[in-house]
């Protein structure tokens, strides 16, 4: 039987784009289906940027330019069954729905996970109510793929900057870019207090790289897309795939079903709807799902494919703790590449955190990476103020933007079977398909972590010179939620993981260690759905590294290997 292509790939974000590059380079033909529009790059040679993303806060942050429009693609949310079918309809962790996916909105902070993140069940005591598991691969196996991911995306960083980093086989492809004033200020204070901030590895060019220019620090990075093509993710892999002549990218093509053959053990392709609502089928030898950890399980559930006991379960975010400092002078965090400094300290063993864990009845506590950031855009600032004279005074002095530094801790979220994505019984999207529904409550571990670390992060702000500090979390803690009306109860984290977890046991996981479905082995899940645990680091570099590994195995290429290098003391 003649197939349309070797592989049909659902989604054009970092996962799908990476797989497309590997497969097309290996000689495969691919069709990529993307439900959103194309605002990223011309699909005709030489595949230049379209120039449609811009330094425009209204368009990008308030008018759903990169999608998904929450009216067209509503999602629903509840904390648990006691709240009925849902308590919220609309935006639930909406990652961009567009060519380039979440890679467009990301500001490119690309840390690796550490060795322990792959072995949390073996290395640490169990926690009541969390289903901790080891990954079916370890850091040493993934390291060469991390190195390849950094090369493909184009990561700027300093290999010796983070004293806690896992071992590396070599340097970053580019040196770090310029330090942002605000981040240098809070980093110096953190160092004074015994923490270990370091220059963030970022998928943002510090020099010309791969035919794309160096970043010019415009400040419209996270959530915006790059108008000058200086962000490596996922422009680079998509362009590389297109240049092979074997990649057919179809925007406004909404995958509705993974099609199985009569045996029910093999996929034969994907059905999708075009911009006019007409149905089509793409037949392929392999199906690759890179739609993200929300849309991938939704597609599997619609199709009745994958281990039904587990698909959609173990949904994880990062539990975000925000510590804010208000300064007596301006910080101009709207100049620079979004975040230039990170620190890992809250993820590591820490005497005070260990004591707090014991007092809370937990065996241990793992927070997350801390981003040394600031606030940058005025509409966002303004809508958080009250109308009247206070508005104008506060906009002139700008304590909530130009004089505010923000620590964001991406706290590790423990996997719980009850946290899940499924299909809403009533609400539908603009195509008439059931909306995806999130059922999610954080574990006590995340809540106690936030309570412990937030005051410590506030102390760093005061050391840096902040005159006022306060903190908040997303999702909100019970003691905060009672104080203010929360219009959207879903976590604002865009780090969505775990809903098609991989493992060696076909009964308790969805995918095997090569990210293929246990029960339909020509379907590969390339995105963060496969993460068995969430770690306290941004997921993107790990998504890309895993996707390279899985795609190379699919194409029968030699596994990558690397040599451990001695660290420079």
């Amino acid at each position, binding site marked *: 039987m003649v197939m349309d292509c070797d592989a049909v790939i659902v989604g054009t974000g970092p996962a799908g784009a990476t797989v497309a590059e590997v497969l097309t380079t290996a000689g495969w033909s691919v069709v990529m289906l993307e439900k959103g529009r194309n605002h990223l790059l011309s699909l005709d040679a030489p595949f230049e940027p379209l*120039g449609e993303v811009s330094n425009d*806060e209204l368009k990008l942050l308030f008018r759903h330019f990169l999608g998904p429009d929450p009216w067209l693609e*509503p999602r629903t949310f509840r904390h648990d069954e006691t709240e009925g079918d849902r308590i919220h309809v609309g935006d639930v962790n909406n990652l961009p729905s567009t060519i380039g996916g979440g890679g467009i909105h990301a500001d490119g902070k690309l840390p690796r996970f550490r060795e322990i993140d792959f072995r949390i069940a073996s290395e640490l005591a169990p926690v009541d109510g969390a289903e901790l598991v080891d990954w079916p691969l370890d850091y040493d196996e993934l390291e060469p793929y991390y190195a390849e991911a950094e090369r493909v995306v184009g990561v700027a960083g300093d290999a010796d900057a983070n004293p806690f980093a896992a071992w590396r086989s070599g340097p970053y492809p580019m040196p770090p870019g310029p330090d942002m*004033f605000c981040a240098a200020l809070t980093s110096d204070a953190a160092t004074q207090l015994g923490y270990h901030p370091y220059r963030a590895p970022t998928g943002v060019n510090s020099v010309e790289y791969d035919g794309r220019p160096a970043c010019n620090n415009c400040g419209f990075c996270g959530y915006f897309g790059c108008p000058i093509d200086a962000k490596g993710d996922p422009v680079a892999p998509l362009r590389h795939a297109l240049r092979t002549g074997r990649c057919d990218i179809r925007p406004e093509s909404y995958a509705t079903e993974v099609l199985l053959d009569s045996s029910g053990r093999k996929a034969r392709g994907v059905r999708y709807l075009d911009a006019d609502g007409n149905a089509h089928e793409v037949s392929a030898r392999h199906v690759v799902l890179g739609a993200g950890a929300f849309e991938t399980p939704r597609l599997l559930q619609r199709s009745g494919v994958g281990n039904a006991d587990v698909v959609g379960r173990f949904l994880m975010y990062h539990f975000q703790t925000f510590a804010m400092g208000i300064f007596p002078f301006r910080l101009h965090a709207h100049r620079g590449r979004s975040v230039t400094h990170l620190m890992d300290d809250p993820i590591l063993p820490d005497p005070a955190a260990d004591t707090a864990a014991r007092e809370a009845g937990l065996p241990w506590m793992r927070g997350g990476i801390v981003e040394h950031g600031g606030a940058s855009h005025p509409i966002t600032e303004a809508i958080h103020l009250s*109308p009247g*004279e206070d508005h104008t005074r506060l*906009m*002139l002095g700008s304590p909530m933007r130009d004089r505010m530094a923000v620590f964001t801790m991406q706290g590790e979220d423990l996997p719980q079977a009850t946290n899940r994505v499924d299909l809403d019984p009533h609400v539908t999207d603009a195509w008439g398909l059931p909306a995806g529904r999130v059922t999610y409550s954080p574990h006590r571990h995340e809540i106690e972590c936030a309570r412990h670390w937030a005051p410590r992060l506030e102390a760093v702000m005061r050391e840096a010179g902040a005159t006022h500090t306060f903190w908040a979390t997303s999702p909100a803690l019970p003691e905060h939620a009672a104080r203010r009306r929360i219009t959207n109860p879903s976590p604002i984290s865009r780090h969505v993981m775990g809903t098609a977890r991989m493992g060696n046991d076909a009964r308790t996981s969805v995918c095997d260690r090569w990210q293929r479905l246990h029960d339909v082995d020509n379907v590969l899940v390339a995105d963060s759905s496969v993460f068995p645990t969430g770690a306290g680091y941004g997921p993107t570099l790990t998504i890309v590294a895993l996707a390279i590994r899985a795609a190379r195995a699919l194409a029968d290429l030699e596994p990558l290997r690397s040599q451990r290098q001695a660290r420079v003391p």
Partner: protein
Amino acid sequence: MPVWLTEHEHAVVAAAADRLIPPYDAHPGGAALGVADFIDALLGAFTFDPPRIWAGGPFSGRAGGDPSFEQFMDLSALEELAWRTRIEGSKGMVERERNGAVIGWQQQYHEGIAALGRDFCDVTPDEQDARLDRNPEFKALLYAQSCEGAYAAPEYGGNRGLRGWASIQYDGDVQPRGYTDEEVAGRD
């Protein structure tokens, strides 16, 4: 000349915007920034082709490059459906009522402005504030969209003369010039 609001409605929106974002010190306030023009352009977005929803890119011309913000972008059929539903309401159309009826911004403004009274522009500021407080839902919509109008790129009709940005010491869009390493790392 407003494109969608009446002259009277436009004047009421401007007066109300000046109570929500009042002039103070270097800040010109909502009326002088053209918030009413911004809201009028949004409510009348589909009287233009392409509709005035998304300004173009990549550059405005203010920091170099060609001024492409003013070339508004085409919407897909679905995007048009979503934005018409928000602006015009669902009006009983099946395709707009998939998950329930929607009261559009046009109707919310007509009714909200009427509820503020024919003489809104002529009463004391304290009375204006009291009337806005008696219509909390409309006040919330008006405040959110006044914030957008005051501080969005001027191509959308507000932030007149860039004074919304200048008064708060914000540069706005800076591509393709960007910032130098010294501007990023330095204190001022």
